């Protein structure tokens, strides 16, 4: 390993090291604060080392990993999100009995897995990253062992994720058998050249697609989402909704950029159907829920449907649109699930709609932030969500994908309806709330994180130019 390679890899190494340090610290002194401090230090060190790595990028580290600007950009995104989840988790687990340190350890491991995913150019590394992420998530989803629902969610995630990963693995094996390589670039070249068994390769790609689609929770592979989101501890839900989906989107984006938009029409049609179904199923089912976590789960299905629209539309705007939309979605999801975790009490989580009754008057700050997050999900101006949606529509209009755009418009209206339901319940009279859900004490760190997130959302919604320039330079570097 050369020095440049080592430097390029240092962000990933540092996160892995942080996991180790947290583990060792936990074996001698159990302390929520200490573990959080070490975790944040680890993330901070990795983020700093990104700048260091940027100087040598792009660097190919073994055939498995490519550290280029796209990877660095997404690594930054993933690490920042991971740090925010850690901050949210601190307050959440402080209120609850049981081991806390392992949460940070698993979080770091999962983030490391996501980090490998965004930097991979090889199916072997993709699989390693995916497994690292997913296995850590099994434990994280079922982290609150005393809660039957959390355990159930963990088990459900375990079984379904394993099945989907096997699909992915089978697909990769078939591709390898036919093409004799697992590197993205070479595969794309070989497929383009032809001379292989068409059906076999297409079937293999479909199998890989199942694995990816499961992670992104696209219809019809979305069934796990509501249950897992509902059962998992709120900070973990935030992680599943953001980092795990974000990393997968990065993989998709990388493949997309490699293919260069030359995707057969039949695949495009299939993707369009999936996108439209995701939007409609997500939004329509969200209308029927009374549980905030479930509503947000279905809404996240719909949002990935929107995201897919940008991919399908293609054109110059697509990579930028995807990335901007993803950032807006990640910041917002982090905020909404973070809010659930911050205002949850000791006994149970604030997940019923009526737990939010009167929140505006009880805790105006948190409610205001939550409302801002929901508005961002709905794509109302002044928030990053609006710029994201604007970008998405711009990509669609640019390529004239009118059917998809039509469904985006219809679904935005549908989505508004349930976002407004949550907002409305926040300023409703405070009579119907069930006891036990409200937090008596304010989790300072969590609230501060959310305030920072809200500021960030509004900043990105009003002054998006800086981020757009950054995204452009990251995407064009591929």
């Amino acid at each position, binding site marked *: 390993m050369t020095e440049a390679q080592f430097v390029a890899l240092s962000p990933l190494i540092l996160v892995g090291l942080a996991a180790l340090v947290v583990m060792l610290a936990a074996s001698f002194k159990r302390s929520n604060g200490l573990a959080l401090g070490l975790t944040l230090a680890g993330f901070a060190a990795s983020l700093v080392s990104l700048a260091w790595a940027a100087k040598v990028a792009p660097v190919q580290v073994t055939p498995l990993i490519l550290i280029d600007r796209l990877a660095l950009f997404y690594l930054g995104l993933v690490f920042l999100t991971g740090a925010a989840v850690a901050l949210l988790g601190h307050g959440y687990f402080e209120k609850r009995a049981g081991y806390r340190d392992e949460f940070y350890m698993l979080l770091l491991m999962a983030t490391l897995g996501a980090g490998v995913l965004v930097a991979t150019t090889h199916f072997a590394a993709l699989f390693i990253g995916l497994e690292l992420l997913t296995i850590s998530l099994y434990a994280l989803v079922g982290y609150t062992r005393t809660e039957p629902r959390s355990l159930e969610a963990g088990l459900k995630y375990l079984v379904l994720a394993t099945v989907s990963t096997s699909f992915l693995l089978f697909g990769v094996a078939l591709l390898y058998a036919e093409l004799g390589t697992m590197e993205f670039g070479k595969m794309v070249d070989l497929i383009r050249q032809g001379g292989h068994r068409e059906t076999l390769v297409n079937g293999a790609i479909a199998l890989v697609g199942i694995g990816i689609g499961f992670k992104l929770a696209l219809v019809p592979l979305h069934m796990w989402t509501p249950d897992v989101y509902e059962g998992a501890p709120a900070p973990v839900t935030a992680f599943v909704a953001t980092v795990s989906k974000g990393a997968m989107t990065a993989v998709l984006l990388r493949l997309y950029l490699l293919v260069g938009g030359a995707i057969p029409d039949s695949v495009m049609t299939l993707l369009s159907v999936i996108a439209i179904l995701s939007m409609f199923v997500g939004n329509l089912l969200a209308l029927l829920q009374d549980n905030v976590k479930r509503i947000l789960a279905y809404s996240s299905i719909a949002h990935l449907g929107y995201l897919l629209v940008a991919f399908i539309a293609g054109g110059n705007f697509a990579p930028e649109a995807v990335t901007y939309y993803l950032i807006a979605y990640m910041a917002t999801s982090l905020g909404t699930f973070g809010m659930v975790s911050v205002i949850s009490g000791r006994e149970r989580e604030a997940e019923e709609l009526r737990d939010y009754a009167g929140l505006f*008057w009880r805790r105006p700050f948190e409610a205001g932030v939550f409302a801002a997050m929901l508005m961002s999900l709905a794509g109302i101006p*002044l928030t990053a969500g609006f710029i994201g949606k604007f970008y998405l529509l711009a990509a669609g*209009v640019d390529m004239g994908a009118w059917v998809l755009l039509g469904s985006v418009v219809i679904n935005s209206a549908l989505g508004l309806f349930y976002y407004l339901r949550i907002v*409305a319940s926040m300023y409703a009279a405070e009579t119907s709330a069930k006891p036990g859900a409200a937090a008596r004490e304010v989790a300072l760190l969590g609230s501060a994180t959310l305030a920072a997130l809200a500021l960030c959302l509004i900043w990105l919604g009003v002054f998006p130019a800086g981020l*757009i320039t950054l995204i*452009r330079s990251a995407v064009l570097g591929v």
Partner: protein
Amino acid sequence: MILVWLILIPLVGGVVAGFVGSRNVSACRWISLVALALDAALAIGMISQHLGGFQYESSKVWFEEFRASWIPVLGISVHLGLDGLSSLMVLLTLFLGIIGVGASWSEIQERAGFFHFNFLWIIAGVLGVFLALDLFLFFFFWEIMLVPMYFLIGIWGHENRQYAAVKFFIFTQASGLLMLLSILALVFVHRAGTGTLTFDYSELLGTQMLPAVATWIMLGFFIAFTVKLPAFPFHPWLPDAHTEAPTAGSIVLAGILLKTGAYGLLRFTVPLFPEAARSFAPVAMTLGVIGIIYAALMAFSQSDLKRLVAYTSVSHMGFVLLGIYSFNEFALQGVVMQMICHGLSAGAQFMLVGALYERIHTRDMGKMGGLWTTAPAFGVAGMFFAMASLGLPGLGNFIAEFLILVGSFQASVPATTIAALGLVGATVYSLWFMRGAFFGPNERGWTIVDLNARELVLIAAFVIGLVWLGVYPQPVLNAVAPVVQSLEKMTQPVTAALLRS
């Protein structure tokens, strides 16, 4: 820069009022009032300077402009501009804004801070809509004014507020997205032609495109604006929103928010797509006429006072649609007059109904009657605005509707004939309103406090405005003359074609 201050003052005032409101309610009312008054003073100072005693200097299109870079990578800038049309709209907005704060002085007791925050942000959003000359910026403000309005209806509204607020929000949001699609389509068509990506209004004017494309893009704008206007069949949100909103909300909705739709049609739909607008005129005029008659009939069959006034709004806005798509000077002048006069008369009616509701806690006409005897000033004011609404000569509304009908007569005789029937309808529902609430025996034995000093001042302001516009409308007509003339020129062939037929 002064244009930026116009928008910033209410924004900042709203934030300050919101913070102060949790401790001192009356301070927050005063802050809102002062902020709006300051804004109005600024606007009047600037506009009177340029209009020079309401004589228009016709050399420049925009007599006040502001331009700053915003998102250069996408060709988006902060571009604000003021011409005769937008000055009038800005003045109307600030006038009704001040009235709105006054009208909610005693009505809003709970969470007043948040109320005034929302109220001032609506005003700021509307001002932004009237000033924006960048299409992205325009859309930005267009959407921003909806959120506080949603809260206004949803939190301080009447019994069925939740339903009304959501309906309002979804209707306007979904139609807004259609407009966004159209904006984007226009921008990309422009880019395909010229190679530059820009959202600037002045550059997008005169974009060359195929007629079919133009029609589709225009439809997006048209639907968004006619939902806001509202025109038949996009009006269902309006009766609910108006009825359930608190008084200040209704005043602002009827007085200003509806005008943003008309303004959008005048400023964007027609100038950006003159050809498409021309060929679309028959449809638009038909919708306008249907709106006039249908809403008049609906108004007549209401028992809820606020709902009645709400339907009269739809009817009056039908005239606006009819006038705009007649494409001649008379009609367009009438449209501007109608926008202002309806803003005043509907605002005043909502204020009266709101004041009445505060006293007797019902809006049901069946439970009223004979209120004139116990509150004569109320009755006189009600009578005055009912007359204004039915178009009594000497008041602004008469001038407006007369001009529109004169103009549209040149464009389409049948449409004008049917629209004129709307005036009969207006007479019927206005008198119905008076009879139901104020005349007849006072069967329920209401004894109510008459209008107090604060309310009398506000009503007087409305009365003076309407009488002035009715007797001496020339300043308004002068102010919009350049806009009207350029619109007429742009759409000239249609008038000729229609006259030939």
